């Protein structure tokens, strides 16, 4: 049953933004990690999103029901998913610290390429998107309630 309109799409988006926030939190937590599991400085992770066909459209296409205006509309309504979490390979700052166990021959340590300002901006953006999707879900439910109230009025 699909009484609340587009709840699937909104759920997908909330999920995607939450993953993004988790990754940002991980970046921030590892801003000073000079030795990661692979022995090198931590590399910031980046989440990529992509727009994909939603399940309703896939179902309609699958049942051979490919034509008509309604299906064109459905095809234009895309949902979102995380297409991957990749490492940002740009080099981090090199800091002179010969006392550090991770210093190279010249006494420099490579720091993680995490820039706090960038991470904070990303976190705020992701958070705003998350809140916006919550509002959409709330409105969707309000619309369903409104229709159901019509059934109850005597």
């Amino acid at each position, binding site marked *: 049953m699909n009484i609340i309109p587009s709840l699937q799409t909104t759920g997908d*988006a909330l999920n995607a933004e939450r993953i993004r926030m988790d990754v940002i939190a991980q970046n921030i937590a590892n801003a000073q990690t000079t030795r990661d599991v692979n022995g090198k400085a931590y590399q910031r992770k980046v989440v990529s999103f*992509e727009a994909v066909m939603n399940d309703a459209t896939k179902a309609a296409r699958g049942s051979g029901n490919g034509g008509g205006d309604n299906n064109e*509309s459905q095809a*234009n309504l895309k949902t979102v998913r995380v297409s991957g979490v990749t490492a940002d390979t740009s080099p981090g700052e090199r800091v002179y610290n010969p006392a550090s166990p991770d210093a190279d021959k010249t006494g420099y340590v490579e720091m993680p390429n995490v820039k706090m300002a960038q991470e904070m901006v990303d976190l705020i953006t992701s958070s*705003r998107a998350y809140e*916006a999707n919550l509002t*959409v879900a709330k409105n969707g439910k309000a619309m369903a309630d409104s229709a159901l*109230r019509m059934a109850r009025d005597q």
Partner: protein
Amino acid sequence: MVDVVMGTDPTASLVARKLLDVQALRHDAIAANIANAETPGYKRVDLDPDFDAQLKDAVQKHDRQAIKNLTPTIVEDRSAKAVRPDGNTVVLEKELMIDNQTAVNYDFLDQYLSMHIQQMQQAARSN
């Protein structure tokens, strides 16, 4: 006989029922836009701009069949401009405003149709 009373909906009722479909569809469009607010290159979608004109036309001509046949569709919004270097055209505030308006419109249409049905029931009972 029941249809004499129930079948001849006033035009306003027909329009209200069609607009309910429109509001639900528009909410779906906004949900898709907001879901993809951070997707690189995503272009926002919305109701086909021709729909409003078609509806007004059919109402002015008192063409009930035309109203019934109207089909609202969701298309890419060609007039939307890119707000980010990656080409994404979604402006969160604008989408939220449209969605809030849509939800209220839907509620209003529900109230109107509810009142309409109630009146007919009262009319039948009062005799």
